[in-house]
C-alpha cells in the first residue's frame, strides 16, 4: 500500500487545481445539514459531517432527468420523433463519498448496465465520474456497513480512498482513474511506510465503533413464498405511512417512472425517481392494483432488497448499511429489525427470533 500524504495547504491547492479538469462535487452545509453539491470556485468539500442527509446517488442518477424531446407540430419534419437529448458528460469527481455510499454504485450498476440493457444516461455519468472516498473514523448508531458488504474503510466502488488523521490526509489510489485524479491534483508526497500500521489501527478502531448489524446468512436459503407469506408483514407495516422517504434517501433504490410533459407543441420525455411505497407505482391501466394495501408495498421493498436481489445476483443484499432509512423514517421502520426477522424466519413454526438491533 502506498499512501500519499496531503497537508491542508496542498489539499486546498489540489482541489482548486482539479476543478480545471473535473466538475467537482462534495459535501457542503446547507441550512441544517450537509448535501453533495457542485463545488464553486474557492469552495471546499466540508468533511465535518458523518454523512450527508441524502446520498450522492442523484449526481449520477438525478431525481428528474430529461431523456428525449419531441415536437407535435404537424408541419415540422421531425413531428412526433423522439430525439435523445445531448448525453455527453464531462469528467466529474465526487469527493467525500463514504464507503457505504461508494458500494451503492456497483450495486446499482447491476441494474443499469446489464448484458441485455445498457442505460446510457446512467452509464455515461457513471463512467465520467471519479469517486474519491472518505474513510469513516467513527460510526453513527444506525450504521451497519460491516454486515452489509463493506466497512468504514471499504474500498469497493472507489477510485481513491482518503483517510483523515487530524489535519493530515492520506490518499490511497485504488484504480487508474484514481491515479489520474491524484496526478491532476498534484499530490505526490509519498507517506512513510510506517503510516500503514497507523492506518491499519485506525481501520480496526473504526470497525469496532460500528455497534449495530444485520444477519443475512440465511436469506438465500429461505423459500421465497414462505417469506412472502410470513405473518409479520402486516404487523411490521402498521406504522408505515407509505411516504417515499426510505426509497428516496436510499443510495441503492433505482426505480423510476417515465413521464411526458407537453408545453404547447413541444415536449420532453423524462424520468423521475419513483417509489414502491406509492400505490400508483403498481396501479394498472385496468384499474387493478396488485399491491393495493400498504403491507404489500412494505413487503415489496424489503423482499426486493433482502431476498429477490440476493437470489438474482448472489452478491449479498441490496443495502449498504448507511442507515439513512432508519434515521429518516418518520415512523421508525427499521430495516435491521426486518432483515433479522426475515433471516431467522421459520415457516414451519412461524417463530421469529428477532435479536434487537
Amino acid at each position: 500500500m502506498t499512501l500519499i500524504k496531503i497537508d491542508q495547504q496542498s489539499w486546498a491547492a489540489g482541489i482548486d487545481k482539479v476543478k480545471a479538469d473535473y466538475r467537482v462535487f462534495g459535501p457542503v452545509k446547507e441550512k441544517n445539514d450537509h448535501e453533495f453539491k457542485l463545488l464553486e470556485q474557492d469552495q471546499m468539500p466540508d468533511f465535518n459531517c458523518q454523512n450527508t442527509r441524502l446520498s450522492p446517488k442523484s449526481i449520477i442518477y438525478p431525481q428528474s432527468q430529461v431523456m428525449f424531446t419531441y415536437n407535435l407540430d404537424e408541419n415540422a419534419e421531425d413531428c412526433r420523433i423522439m430525439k435523445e437529448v445531448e448525453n455527453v458528460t464531462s469528467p466529474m469527481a465526487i469527493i467525500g463519498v463514504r464507503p457505504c455510499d461508494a458500494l451503492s454504485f456497483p450495486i446499482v450498476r447491476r441494474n443499469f448496465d446489464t448484458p441485455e440493457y445498457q442505460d446510457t444516461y446512467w452509464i455515461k455519468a457513471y463512467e465520467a465520474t471519479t469517486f474519491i472516498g472518505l474513510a469513516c473514523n467513527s460510526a453513527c448508531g444506525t450504521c451497519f456497513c460491516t454486515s452489509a458488504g463493506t466497512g468504514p474503510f471499504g474500498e469497493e466502488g472507489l477510485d481513491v480512498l482518503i483517510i483523515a488523521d487530524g489535519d493530515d490526509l492520506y490518499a490511497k489510489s485504488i484504480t487508474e482513474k484514481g491515479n489520474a485524479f491524484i496526478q491532476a491534483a498534484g499530490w505526490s508526497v509519498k507517506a512513510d511506510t510506517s503510516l500503514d500500521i497507523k492506518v491499519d489501527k485506525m481501520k480496526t478502531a473504526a470497525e469496532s465503533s460500528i455497534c449495530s448489524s444485520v444477519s443475512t446468512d440465511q436469506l438465500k436459503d429461505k423459500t421465497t413464498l414462505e417469506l412472502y407469506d410470513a405473518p409479520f408483514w402486516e404487523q411490521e407495516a402498521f406504522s408505515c405511512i407509505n411516504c417515499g422517504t426510505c426509497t428516496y434517501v436510499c443510495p441503492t433504490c433505482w426505480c423510476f417512472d417515465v413521464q411526458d410533459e407537453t408545453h404547447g407543441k413541444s415536449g420532453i420525455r423524462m424520468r423521475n425517481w419513483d417509489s414502491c411505497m406509492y400505490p400508483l407505482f403498481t396501479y394498472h391501466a385496468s384499474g387493478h392494483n396488485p399491491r393495493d394495501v400498504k403491507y404489500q408495498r412494505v413487503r415489496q421493498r424489503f423482499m426486493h432488497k433482502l431476498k429477490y436481489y440476493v437470489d438474482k445476483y448472489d452478491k449479498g443484499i441490496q443495502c449498504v448499511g448507511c442507515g439513512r432509512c432508519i434515521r429518516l423514517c418518520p415512523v421508525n421502520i427499521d430495516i435491521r429489525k426486518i432483515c433479522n426477522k426475515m433471516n431467522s424466519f421459520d415457516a414451519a413454526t412461524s417463530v421469529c427470533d428477532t435479536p434487537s438491533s
Partner: protein
Amino acid sequence: MTQYTDKIKEIANRVLTEGKVEMVIGFRKGSVPMMNQPHLATCAKSVDELVWDSSCGLNLANYITDKKGSIGVIAKGCDSRNIVTHIIENKIKRDQLYIIGVPCNGMIDHHKINAMFDTEVQNVEDSGDSITISGSGFSETMSKQELLAENCAVCTHRNPVEYDELVGDLVEEQKDVDQYASVTKVESLSADDKFNYFEDLLSPCIRCYACRNACPLCYCPTCFVDESTPQWVGKSQDPTDVKTFHLLRAYHCAGRCTDCGACERVCPMGIKIREFTKKLNKDCQDLYGWEAGLSLDERPPLDSFRTDDPDEFIK
C-alpha cells in the same frame, strides 16, 4: 412520564380484556432517539410495549381513518381534535372509539435537537420538565420548554377535547402565547419577498409526500397529485409543481388543520410546512372565529353557510 405509561398500559389491558375494544393504538419505543413508533396493541404482550414520553408527536388520528371494528386510541390534545374532525367528516363513528385521553405538556422537536449538536445524538432521557441529550463526548440537560416543537410551544389545547378516560389530571393550558407570530412576519413581506421566502422554504423538498401521508386530514382515496386522467400536476422536481402540491394541500386543510405539527415532524428534509397551514388557520380564526376539532356539534366554516359569514369579497 412513567405514570402515564403505566396508566396507559393499565387502561389498554382493561379495555381489551373487557372486550370494549379489539385493538389499542398507541406508541412503542423507537429504535432511534426521539422516534417513537405508532403501535397496534391487541394482546397483553403487545400492550406491554406501549410507552408515553415527549417523543409521541405523531398524530394517531391518522391510524383510525376508515378502520372497522372497535378501537382504543391514545389521544393528546391535537389527536383528539383530529378525531373530532374525523367524526364530523364521517371517517369514523364516535361509538367505535374508546378515546384514552392524554393531557399533554408538549412534544420535543427532533429536527431542532439533532441540529443543535455537531455529532450524533445517541440518547435522549425524558425527565418530565427537563430533557437530557447525550452522545459521544457530550451530555446536556435542558428545560423541555426550550426544546418543544414549534406547534407545541404555541399550543392552547393541550388537554384532549373528547375522551372516554384520562390517563392523568388535566394540565393547565398555555395562555398569552402569540400563535401566529411566524405568519404575521410573512404577511408583512412584499409580494416578491413572500415568493422568494416560499421558494426557499420548499427548495429542499424531495416530494416524498411524508407530510401528506402523516396528516390525518389527507385521506382522499386518490390525492390530486396522484391522479393521471387528467394529470393535474407534473411529477418532476420542477419548482412550480412542487409549490403546487404544497399550496393545494394546505388549502385542502383550511378550517380542518389542528396544527398538530405531524407534517413538519415527519419531513425528512426539515421543511417548515406549517408556514402554509398556519396562515390558513389564522384566516379561519380571523374570519370565522374558528378553531378546528373543538366540538362535535358544530360544522366547520367551509362546509356550512351562515348569513353572517364575511362577504366583503363580493362587490
